[in-house]
């Protein structure tokens, strides 16, 4: 416990020293926790591959995702179209490749947005601890305990179709997650000796929050952020599967699934298999990344 907090404090001395201590910590961890290390690496690989696909889709497919003349309609997977074609003759493979852009972008942006709202609110709420904290906690707890998807559905319907709109609708669901996490941490950190010391030397409240509380909260936030993206991926896919959130013309895995559903009774398996597989894989990648990080950053869980 003691050398952990020492390492943590060292990490914030200077960027170079911080990076060095981080690398040392991870290479120590690699030796100590083989399985957890592999979980982290595999997760990272999956995420990196999909991110690469998002950045350079041209390397993975030669078809345009919206080109309706690319091939025969509802063509089975073949040499020409590895993953087949959909009801409009579009190449399923290219829609899978280009669809990664939508889901990854939306999930990442939504998680970031909810973190940017939830973290400051949680910090201030937990630190202040007055009536505003009580009200805010009640509101956040109410949203948290309610099925998030229903809230996202309501927001997506209100905002109408659009990439930014669906991002906001997904983000709404996760603000309470960050709020509750950060508030809880802030409450316990507030009691620490070094915060009391800072107060004693007359540090301003904003300084204490920014320099003493926030850096200690951020380690847990990283883990949750990764797990949160995995969850946001599922929520985005669910919204567009229902038919809310995205305009036609943007390739998206969830939307392709709902289209493929119509042709399922006639045995068209390729339209639904690949987009869904990709959703699962991407969510799995971020989950593994988060789990690996948490087991290495949080050795208390190591026992299991």
């Amino acid at each position, binding site marked *: 416990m003691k050398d952990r907090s020492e390492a943590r404090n060292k990490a914030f001395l200077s960027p170079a020293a911080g990076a060095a201590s981080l690398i040392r910590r991870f290479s120590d961890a690699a030796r100590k926790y083989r399985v957890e290390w592999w979980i982290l690496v595999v997760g990272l690989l999956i995420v990196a591959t999909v991110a690469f696909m998002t950045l350079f889709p041209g390397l993975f497919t030669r078809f345009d995702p919206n080109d309706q003349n690319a091939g025969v309609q509802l063509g089975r997977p073949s040499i020409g179209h590895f993953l087949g074609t959909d009801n409009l003759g579009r190449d399923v493979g290219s829609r899978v490749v280009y669809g990664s852009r939508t889901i990854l972008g939306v999930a990442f942006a939504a998680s970031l947005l909810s973190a940017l709202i939830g973290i400051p609110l949680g910090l201030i709420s937990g630190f202040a601890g007055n009536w505003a904290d009580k009200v805010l906690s009640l509101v956040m707890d109410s949203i948290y*305990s309610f099925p998030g998807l229903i809230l996202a559905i309501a927001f997506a319907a209100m905002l109408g179709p659009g990439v930014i709109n669906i991002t906001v609708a997904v983000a709404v669901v996760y603000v309470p997650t960050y709020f509750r996490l950060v508030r809880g941490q802030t409450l316990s950190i507030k009691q620490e000796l070094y915060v009391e010391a800072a107060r004693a030397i007359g540090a301003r409240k904003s300084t204490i929050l920014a320099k003493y509380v926030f850096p200690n909260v951020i380690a847990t936030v990283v883990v949750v952020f990764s797990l949160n993206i995995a969850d946001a991926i599922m929520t985005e896919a669910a919204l567009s599967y229902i038919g809310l959130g995205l305009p036609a013309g943007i390739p998206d895995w969830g939307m392709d699934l709902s289209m493929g559903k119509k042709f*399922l009774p006639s045995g068209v398996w390729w339209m*639904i298999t690949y987009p*869904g597989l990709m959703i699962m*894989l991407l*969510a*799995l990648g971020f*989950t593994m990344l988060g789990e690996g990080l948490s087991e290495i950053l949080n050795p208390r869980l190591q026992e299991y």
Partner: protein
Amino acid sequence: MRRILNYLAGRLLLTVPMIFILLSLVFVVLRVMPGDPVSAMLGGHAPDTVIEKKKAELGLDKSLGAQYVDYLGQLLRGDLGKSMIFEEPVSASIFAKLPATLELTFFGLLVCLGLGVPLGVRAARKRRTGQDFGIRFYANIVYCIPVFWLGLMLQMIFGVFFNVFPIAGRTGSRVIVSDFDTTGLYVVDTLIHGDFAALGDVLFHLALPAITLGLTLSGVFVRLTRANMLDTLKADYVLASRARGIPERKVVYGHALKNALIPIVTMLGLQFSALLAGAILTETTFSWPGMGRLLLERIYLRDYPVIQGVIIVYALLVTLVSLVVDLAYAAIDPRVEL
């Protein structure tokens, strides 16, 4: 008993602000949403005067604040209002769909626990072996499968390729629902009427949706059961029971699992809202006539009172379950005082 009643009253009072907050949020979101029920109903071809008249009739011409006060007043009288599109009270359309959702959720939960808990126990007993890793792998994979995609794949495999299970609806064409429909929970209804042919058909239709819903959530319970069993299996009383020669099965399931059950029950309450969200997607995939589909249909029609009513019922369900979980908690663990 008195203490339990006091506790119940306190908890129920606490749900009031929660429902109020959610309702206010949804109320504002709905009213800000582009489109309104009148335009959705009349199709946009009606002259403005007709639209204005209809809006006035429904009270939509009043200010947002006035509409809100009206609605809250109505709620306090225990009235969910009337649909703005169809001539029916909101409570009637919700109660027509609620049993379908409850049945799906209940059987989904059954599948979820039936798979998750035994697998978790097994993984804990075979810690750090191939079986353990296999089960943990299953738990992680299953957690990342989108519930609607799993539904589609099961439909494709068992409904289309092997053609053994139906892929849509609650009953087949050979069953006449009005013969047994009393509570709306078809499994219960057919049992009451002793109509076993119909019961078979109902269960047949329930199979894929329930498995879809249960499977995706079982991963959480595998992990939780495993983690808690690892703790309890190390406890002294387990060692003592083994030393006394009590059969291993009884030690594991009777002693260790019973003590590991408390966090599992807590998790059940927390996962219930995930179950409801999953149920909405399962209903969409399997054309299951439940509350989730009602909600989606009415969102497209901008039928405000029904949407608000459905949200209230969902919120009530969540709080009700967390209440039951708290009570179960006290029943399982004699150390817990309410």
